[in-house]
């Protein structure tokens, strides 16, 4: 693509400054919305665009907005900027380099659900970024784009940043809300869903940074325009985070529906040292490990095609490329150790399951395991599936089961016969 829709800083120098952003159409969407559109019209436009949540779940954004009840107030909006999935690094680039488009998106979402307060929940490691965004928020307040009666309208909005402090689980939206309330980041039982009972017990909309950044161009150019990009069921563009054994790792903004092959070879420059590709993971450490055969490489990266063709969700489109030099037992030991470390400890299947899986993978890679331990590892993972309180426990099993099933020799290499 010639011009970026989300990563516009790659085309426009200085777009992180308010006057430059405004000079290229910035805040025109927000101004149009608060001056000429009813909140429900904004929601309708987003619904029509077919935009789906970019944090990983892929839920239709406009539909999510519609869940907030109009008889309980106040409403809150929270931007999920907890980006912590191994392999994911897109939201950081958006916020660092094109901050006002993200903030405008957050303001549009806040207007649509009539929230007067919005929080940006950043992982604590983004300490510098939080200070940077605080300054951008001050710039908006000085320009009267935030505050009371914005641009002479009846709409008022304040935005605050809130730093986490190192916990992957806080990307799960109910754990995130607990964290803003000053508690351990442990997921809540659902229902009630955050849309009804969220932050401080009030209706709350939580959207990912990339999702929000899509909103200004959608409101500016219309839902029909947005639908000209991507596929029918996955309209629009997506930022693909490409990492692992690839020559040019990085963020690539492309229409949904680009194939693995194009992403890895055309954009990513191919495999390091021209080795053979072995497998791919599409949603960071939470993914199945997919054998990189022609069928997989020719799969369009869209929500529906990844499920239909590979039975593996697109998730956050954080593609980790694995070449022939990667041993899958080593890999699974890595991912399982991550999930063991990040398990919040609230539910037994995840707390105990990740512990025991990690014990087994540790034994396997150290050459201390028996062949039957490979089956035990798989059995342990399958036992966890469907029994964890939140999706993150479930995620810890994906790489384990798929790796044992598809790359068993990699495990057998390590065990005593």
């Amino acid at each position, binding site marked *: 693509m010639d011009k970026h829709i989300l990563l516009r800083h790659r085309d426009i120098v200085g777009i992180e400054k308010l006057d430059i952003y405004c000079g290229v159409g910035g805040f025109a969407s927000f101004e149009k919305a608060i001056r000429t559109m009813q909140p429900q019209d904004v929601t309708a436009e987003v619904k029509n665009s077919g935009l789906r949540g970019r944090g990983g779940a892929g839920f239709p954004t406009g539909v999510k907005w519609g869940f907030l009840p109009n008889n309980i107030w106040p409403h809150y909006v929270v931007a999920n900027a907890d*980006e*912590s*999935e*191994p*392999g*994911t*690094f897109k*939201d*950081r680039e958006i916020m660092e380099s094109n901050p006002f488009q993200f903030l405008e998106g957050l303001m549009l979402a806040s207007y649509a659900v009539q929230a007067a307060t919005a*929080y940006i929940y950043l*992982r*604590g*490691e*983004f*300490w*510098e970024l939080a200070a940077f965004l605080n300054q951008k928020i001050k710039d908006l307040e000085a320009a009267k784009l935030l505050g009371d009666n914005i641009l002479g309208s009846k709409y008022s909005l304040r935005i*605050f940043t*809130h*730093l*986490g*402090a*190192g*916990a*992957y689980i806080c990307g799960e939206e109910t754990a995130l809300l607990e*964290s*803003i*309330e*000053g*508690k*351990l*980041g442990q997921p809540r039982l659902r229902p009630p869903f955050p849309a009804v009972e969220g932050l*401080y017990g009030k209706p709350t909309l939580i959207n990912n940074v990339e999702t929000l950044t899509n909103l200004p161009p959608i409101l500016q150019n219309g839902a029909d325009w947005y639908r000209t990009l991507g596929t029918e069921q996955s309209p629009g563009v997506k930022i693909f*985070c*490409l*990492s*692992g*054994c690839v020559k040019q*790792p*990085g*963020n690539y903004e492309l229409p949904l529906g680009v194939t693995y092959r194009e992403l890895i070879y055309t954009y990513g420059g191919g495999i390091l040292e021209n080795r053979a590709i072995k497998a791919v993971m599409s949603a960071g*450490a939470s993914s199945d490990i997919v054998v990189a055969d022609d069928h997989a490489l020719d799969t369009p990266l869209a929500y529906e095609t990844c499920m239909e063709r590979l039975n593996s969700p697109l998730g956050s489109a954080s593609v*980790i490329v*694995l070449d022939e030099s*990667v041993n899958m037992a080593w*890999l699974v030991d*890595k*991912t399982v150790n*991550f999930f063991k*470390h*990040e398990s*919040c400890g609230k539910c037994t299947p995840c707390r105990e399951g990740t512990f025991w899986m990690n014990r087994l993978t540790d034994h396997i890679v150290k050459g201390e395991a028996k062949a039957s331990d490979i089956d035990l590892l798989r059995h342990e993972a399958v036992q966890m599936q469907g029994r964890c309180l939140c999706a993150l426990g479930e995620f810890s099993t994906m790489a384990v089961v798929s790796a044992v099933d598809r790359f068993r020799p990699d495990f057998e290499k390590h065990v005593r016969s």
Partner: protein
Amino acid sequence: MNQLYQKYATEIDEIFSRYPADQKNSAVMPLLFVAQREKGYVPADALPQIAELTGVSETDITAVMGFYTLFHEQPAGRYRIQVCTDLPCALRGAEQYLQDLCAALGVSEGGTTSDGLFTVEAVKCLAACHRAPVFQLQGDGEIKYYEKQSVELTLQVAAGLRELHSREGSSING
């Protein structure tokens, strides 16, 4: 009188202004960061002060401190060099980098240099997978990212900080 509040009154007032008046509990984590700024860990006497300011029990605040990895209960080096060794970084040599860095600084993983300036640790994903090896530097109340690292580059960063502290002649053990 609350010593933490006395020292950081303006900042603490600003923190509370972000949240509804009846939700002082939301200030627990921001206040832990404030309490940790000076020494690189949260001194035990800060807990009753945060409890008094927020109305949250000391027990609950201690639990929060233990849950989140960026809060520290124990003193360590003035700066924590925290290297990501998760999968995407490991695929690009982060484990070897960490090992070599530890050797170059003369510490084992998790250990602190003899001058008390640097603790070297492995941490989980930092969202910088495309610029591995990467570490974050936690110290003096700040967290900064250093990306596309080599041992040589990191030693330059460390040398710069050492020089800064020898010039200032400041106490480095907090």
